[in-house]
């Protein structure tokens, strides 16, 4: 355990030390590049006055709801497309085209349509999560060996049994790969929405810090976002370790 984390710990310490020395001796003003210590002080303050937990909670809610919605739709639609070549042919041009539009470009539209509340952020987040999960669901389900279908059919298995006993476990590795990408993207989705227009959330906090030249606050918000993304990534890795034990060697 210690051996595993020692390199990352040392490199973090070295990074922080270098940063601290840079701000101290380079003469760069604090509102352009704050020192790690001032960021830390700002962090403590933001935690104590309750603003950071509050805004983090808002953003986290948007991320989780957006992620769940995106994954739910992507999985269902992906499964249907994997099963029907015709539907895939009809729908895939739209799906690919929809991916060509940067979410950043349509985010303002969504905010106008869906108001500046939490809903517009959830939708943007879901949209950004949708595609990678969709593609991996299709690839995963298509990759299920036909021989396993033969086996289940020779046993007169029902559709539901084939789904749960073959298709779900067989496509899980590829699906979780998509989920890992989707989970990290979901953080971006929520922030994009908040930056367009929001009264709360980490994106709002970030913008507030920007407007007020409270640069340490901006850093606090950014680091919190990184932490959120890492936690989500870590959760997917945990799922992989739990469900794909049969794969790792």
């Amino acid at each position: 355990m210690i051996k595993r984390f020692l390199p990352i710990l040392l490199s973090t310490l070295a990074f922080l030390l270098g940063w601290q020395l840079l701000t101290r001796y380079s003469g760069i003003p604090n509102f352009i590049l704050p020192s790690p210590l001032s960021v830390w002080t700002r962090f403590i303050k933001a935690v104590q006055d309750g603003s950071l937990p509050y805004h983090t909670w808002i953003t986290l809610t948007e991320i989780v709801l957006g992620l769940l919605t995106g994954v739910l739709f992507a999985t269902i639609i992906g499964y249907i497309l994997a099963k029907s070549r015709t539907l895939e042919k009809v729908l895939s041009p739209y799906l690919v085209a929809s991916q060509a539009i940067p979410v950043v470009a349509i985010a303002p539209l969504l905010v106008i349509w869906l108001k500046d509340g939490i809903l517009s952020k959830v939708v943007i987040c879901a949209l950004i999560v949708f595609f990678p999960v969709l593609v991996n669901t299709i690839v995963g389900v298509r990759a299920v060996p036909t021989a396993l279908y033969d086996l289940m059919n020779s046993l007169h298995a029902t559709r539901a049994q084939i789904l749960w006993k073959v298709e779900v476990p067989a496509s899980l590795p590829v699906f979780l790969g998509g989920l890992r990408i989707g989970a990290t993207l979901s953080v971006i989705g929520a922030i994009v929405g908040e930056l367009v227009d929001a009264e709360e959330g980490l994106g709002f906090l970030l913008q507030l810090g920007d407007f007020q030249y409270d640069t340490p606050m901006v850093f606090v918000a950014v680091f919190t976002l990184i932490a959120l993304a890492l936690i989500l990534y870590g959760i997917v890795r945990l799922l992989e370790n739990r469900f794909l034990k049969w794969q790792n060697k």
Partner: protein
Amino acid sequence: MGEAISCQLAGIASPGGAPPRNDTNKTMSHTPILTIRNLSTVFPDENGGLRALRDVTFDVHPREFICVLGPSGSGKTTLLRILAGLIKPTSGSFKFGHGEQPSTGMVFQQANLMPWRTVIENIKLPLEVKNINDAVARAKAREMIELVGLQGFEDSLPRDLSGGMAQRVAIARALIHDPDLLLLDEPFGSLDALTRERMWTELSRIWQARQKTVIMVTHSINESLFLADRVLVLTQRPGKIKMDVEVDLPRPRKDDIRYTPHFGKLARKLREAIE
């Protein structure tokens, strides 16, 4: 092909279990468990269809071990897939003696195990599909593990098994739900020669212990003579039965039976039939 398209799975056509048609010349000692009549299959393709099987007709008797021998592309696998209910024949019929939907256990060319399931979980799959209580299924699976000699590997994953062991798991899985018919599709084709021969002895032993009716597809003459009571030789595509040979070698058959004159005679006969 003007034949009427009919696939009579027993029980649908004759609820009372009609007596088997007696249109063969041979006098049978038992009622056949399975009667196959004029089975033909055409797979649709660009040039009007690929004929895989042509007028295949034969009877299978209870506890008989039949090998279907033929060159590659003779429709051997198609025949098994029809009997397993995976594809429907274009014409002709097959009918099980007891007049019900038959249950089959199939062993494929590759072991075809689920890599995410342990040995015991793979073996109990057919019982799971039948929604049988898990404790009962596990107990039965342990019994099967003992039968195929895999004690100690219950919780191993397929990736940790050798080819021969994986195929034993597949055989155990095909037998656990006590099927009417065991269908083997070149199950030892991917094994090395030594393992393959060891598996013949194993399969003979298992067959004798479980008293199953077996139809096995193979392209190995030795394999068919070592295992079968009867060998059916199919022609090149579209496969038609060319020869029906009784294998009257004494059982249990040992390795050295291959060096007996009678074995040699039968082997030559089959070799000539195959072309």
